[in-house]
């Protein structure tokens, strides 16, 4: 049985989500001047959240392929959660980058005047292709459960299931359902296999948006897209650990071992991520190119040092690893580790984007540009940026809880007879 989500989650995310929607409308009316961005730090919190959510999506999706493509049966029950998270995270990421545009209503220009030399233009194609694959795979896995729910429910729920089941016939017996579901799983494996290069394109490509910028030595490195991908896997596995611990069926005898397997994947990805980060810092410091080490210095010892030391090192690395070592038997603590990782990766994303702008590309320019906040080489997100960001995230959590409540998130074999 699916565990219902506590009421307070609905209420708090719903209220915060409404504030977020109002803030979004306000941003669209007033314009991008509600941010504290400048011409020297042109990308800030919204872009950091954009790559965060794209990474969360690609990570969750790639995690689902472990199950549906590579047959990791021990975590299969988290499969649909992973796919649904992938859908919601991608849409959130796109909402953030859309909100960040100076002319949001011109976004279709990306498809009309598509520029093949722009990584960003390629990415917009990838996002479309990717969301189609993920939605299709999610639907394939849920369709027979949706058909049964359609037959069982009444009122608006029936209309909803009628819509999303899209004419899927109801299986006549539980044997037939098993057979049909196995067929769906085969298709999911094929879609998942196609989805792997696409998801790598989605997030490796998002990393490449930055990595191709030769003007910024911190970004301009082949390891950059790889770090994007690996930290995407970290955030995806962390999210699955947290969500499954929070939402999984506690009476299931496998419940605890599933959470532990998820946590193991999380820690494995985290270790690889840590290694890559170490390489990035050591090679950067050894090279000693001023524009490069100024950025690394800013990350470690700059005005926002705590984003690295508390967020990136503390929440995303130390807390999960310590919990994994000492509190591995407690599902509660593993959930805390997952949540800590999910939040900590936000700091990683902020540090991937913003520090690249703190060092003037031409030395001495800061003496001119720092005289006006809209030109300055410094940045902190404005209250408007915080409200829109947190509000939009709350809104997505609200929608996610609604979808979780309505959709068959886990296999419902034992319920077939009852219908």
């Amino acid at each position, binding site marked *: 049985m699916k565990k219902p989500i506590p009421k307070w989650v609905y209420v708090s995310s719903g209220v915060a989500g409404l504030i977020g929607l109002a803030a979004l409308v306000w941003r669209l009316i007033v314009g991008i001047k509600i941010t504290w961005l400048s011409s020297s730090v*042109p990308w800030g919190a919204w872009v950091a959240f954009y790559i965060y959510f794209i990474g969360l999506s690609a990570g969750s999706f790639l995690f689902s392929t472990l199950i549906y493509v590579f047959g990791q049966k021990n975590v299969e029950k988290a499969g649909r959660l992973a796919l649904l998270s992938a859908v919601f995270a991608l849409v959130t990421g796109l909402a953030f980058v859309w909100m960040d*545009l*100076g002319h949001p209503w011109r976004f279709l220009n990306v498809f009309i*005047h598509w520029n093949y030399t*722009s990584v*960003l233009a390629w990415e917009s194609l990838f996002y479309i292709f990717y969301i189609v694959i993920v939605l299709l795979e999610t639907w394939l896995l849920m369709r027979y459960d949706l058909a049964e729910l359609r037959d069982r429910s009444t009122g608006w729920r029936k209309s909803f299931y009628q819509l999303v089941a899209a004419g899927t016939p109801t299986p006549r017996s539980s044997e037939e359902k098993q057979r049909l579901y196995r067929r769906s799983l085969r298709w999911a494996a094929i879609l998942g296999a196609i989805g792997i290069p696409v998801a790598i394109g989605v997030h490796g490509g998002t990393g490449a948006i930055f990595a191709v910028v030769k003007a910024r030595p911190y970004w301009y490195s082949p390891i950059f897209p790889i770090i994007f991908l690996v930290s995407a896997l970290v955030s995806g596995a962390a999210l699955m650990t947290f969500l499954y611990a929070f939402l999984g069926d506690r009476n299931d005898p496998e419940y605890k071992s599933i959470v532990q397997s998820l946590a193991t994947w999380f820690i494995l990805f985290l270790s690889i991520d840590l290694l890559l980060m170490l390489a990035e810092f050591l090679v950067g410091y050894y090279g000693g190119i001023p524009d490069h080490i100024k950025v690394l210095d800013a990350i470690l010892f700059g005005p926002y040092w705590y984003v690295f030391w508390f967020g990136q090192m503390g929440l995303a690395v130390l807390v999960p690893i310590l919990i994994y070592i000492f509190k591995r038997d407690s599902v509660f603590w593993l959930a805390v580790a997952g949540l800590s990782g999910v939040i900590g990766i936000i700091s990683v994303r902020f540090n991937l984007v913003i520090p690249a702008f703190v060092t003037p590309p*031409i030395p*001495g320019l800061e003496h001119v540009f720092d005289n006006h906040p809209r030109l300055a080489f410094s940045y902190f997100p404005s209250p408007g940026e915080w409200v829109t960001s947190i509000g939009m995230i709350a809104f997505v959590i609200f929608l996610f809880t609604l979808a979780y409540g309505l959709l068959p998130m886990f296999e419902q074999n034992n319920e077939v007879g009852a219908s």
Partner: protein
Amino acid sequence: MEVIQEKTQNGSAASEVDVHRREFLKKLGSGVFASLLMPILFKDNFAALADEALAQVDLPELPEPSPEEDPLVRMMRDLQRALKKPLEQRKWTMVIDLRKCVGCHACTVSCIAENKLPPGVMYRPVIEEEVGEYPNVHRRFIPRPCMQCENPPCTPVCPVNATYKRPDGVVVIDYNRCIGCRYCLTACPYNARTFDWGEYYTEDVGFLGLQPYEQVDTMEYGLDWKRPEGRSPVGNARKCHFCLHRIEKGLLPMCVVSCIGRATFFGDANDPDSLVSELIAQPNVMRLKEELGTRPKVYYLM
């Protein structure tokens, strides 16, 4: 001059038709939908409009050449020669003599006045460097316009082809097409691109309020941009364009004419007789960040 006015009037008449059509669609109750379809419904014709508006007529009359003439007059003569050639045979080039720059910032200010630049937008800052230790210090000034690279890193990253290099080498931005993603700002190794945040210097200044000089349309690329109405270039990337609207009419860029030390030179590097061609052949010439392969068309004399 009448010809130009007629042409710009045609341009504004066309945009009036656009406004009517948009009003009509709004009446249908889908303003958002309409603006999404804007680029499809209405011909995207920045390049054509700009070419039309910039079409040269009546170049200024210049005195007979003389050995004592101001370099500005010589450069205007060079300019007129270049304008007689087809677009693709011109190679607009700027030379800045750092030994003559006194750091007065007149170029920065005149550029702001010429292009009505708002807060956050600056096409030509003057970098100031202090050399040595107090009290034995010298100051060094480096004006930094857009380098108008031969191989610009900013244009290939644009997802919508809104910024491109013209045949005469000037890198321009189609304000009507730019979506304001600011990818080009990050890609420029010279920080030469800035963003129009839609602000005004005087909007928050006490009882005086927004000053009329900030409410004038900007005429970049020879077109009438209704910025005070909150339209483009608000929300767009903006950059130095060598004052295309001036050079196409036979006038030198504003930073060149306002330079009190005659430290900034401008002309056609494809013309061996031009002043800039003479200057960039000197041994003491330098370009910024050549190692990136950008091949700037702004040269510095040291």
